[in-house]
């Protein structure tokens, strides 16, 4: 029954090891926020483009408007019945609670800012956290007499045909070139006549 010295160390070492592992397991904290959607699925969603809503469709009782601009801009003017959640504060507990509640109520959230570019970042961020009931309002805001004017805007529209512009500029510049060449030709012929006359006078002696 008496144990040898060496094997006693094994039992001490292994019990310590087990204790350490149990302590690590108990101290392990689950991360607060986890991405629920991976990048490949997010990309698919982006390509479908069905997350964009235009100004006419927002008057629907199931829709909740959220303004992602900061408090100051919201205070200046905002769309009717919209809530202000500014982008840096999205991960605050109170705001996450609002999003959770809206998701469980099956309401569609429509986010807007001064232009669609401002909204795309929070939208993608929230989508990856798992809130798939969010859409973007494609408007551009401007202020007129302290009122908010929201104008519908097309996302990623090519505004200018650059090649046509460059070709036209070259055409215009070449037209200018032709006119100036015509003016200079008559000046060259005047010089030649004068010098021939001088040579004939020397032959006489």
């Amino acid at each position: 029954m008496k144990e040898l010295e060496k094997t006693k160390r094994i039992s001490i070492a292994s019990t310590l090891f087990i204790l350490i592992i149990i302590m690590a397991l108990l101290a392990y904290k689950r991360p607060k926020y986890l991405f629920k959607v991976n990048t490949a699925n997010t990309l698919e969603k982006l390509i479908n483009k069905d997350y964009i809503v235009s100004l006419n469709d927002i008057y629907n009782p199931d829709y909740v408007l959220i303004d992602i601009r900061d408090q100051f801009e919201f205070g200046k003017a905002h769309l009717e019945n919209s809530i202000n959640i500014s982008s840096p504060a999205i991960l605050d507990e109170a705001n996450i609670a609002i999003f959770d509640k809206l998701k469980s109520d099956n309401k569609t959230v429509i986010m807007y800012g001064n232009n669609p570019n401002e909204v795309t970042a929070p939208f993608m961020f929230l989508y990856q956290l798992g809130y798939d009931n969010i859409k973007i309002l494609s408007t551009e805001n401007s202020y007129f007499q302290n009122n908010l004017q929201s104008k519908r805007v097309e996302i990623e529209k090519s505004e200018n045909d650059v090649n046509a512009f460059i070709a036209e500029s070259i055409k215009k510049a070449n037209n200018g070139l032709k006119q100036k060449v015509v003016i200079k030709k008559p000046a060259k012929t005047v010089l030649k006549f004068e010098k021939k006359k001088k040579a004939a006078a020397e032959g006489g002696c």
Partner: protein
Amino acid sequence: MVKKKIAKILAFRYKILALIFIILAGGLVLLPKHQKYEGIKPEELLSKVISPERYISTDKLADKLINKDPSYLLIDIRDEESYTKYTLPNAFNVPLAKLLDEDSEMYLDQDSYNVVLFSNDSFYADQAWILCTRLGYKNIHVLKGGINQWFKTIINPQKPIENMPAKEFELYTFRKAASMHFGVAYPEQFKGTTVIKKEPTIKKSTKKVITVKKKKKAPAEGGC
């Protein structure tokens, strides 16, 4: 009595320890499924997304392109049709749909170049940037305003009104020179070339006059 019981249990201690080890090993194998998520943490992604440091202005990019800075790699996120119609010089085409393909990874996931993503406006380029940042790619920027802004500022710069500060005029001069570099022609450019053409024709007529004079002097000497 208790001592005897404890003594009995202690006899089996190695078997008990071995059993506990096996259970822990099984637990460790099952755990990682909860921990793994792709890319960086949400808090980190949010702070990167909010910050405007990813944007590069059209003026800065034009400056780099004119100076032929080799560290910049331009990637067009639009579809192939728009890319073939017009794109920035030396830009590659990676349509948004193919952003996460293996072929595109070699352009995006590298440390040697500064990648600049662009599209017609900042919208799609921003989305591509967010996905790349989540996957941990570094050195990726977005051209602010995209091709639309490029046109407004570099290809077709607006001349400043007289009451604007001198800085605006300097900027306009820079932009005008940049537009010439990228292919736009101005009528004033060609004024200089026609002036140069004048001089060669005048030189030819003076050369002819010299040869005529020398022939006539020789016969006059013989008569004296």
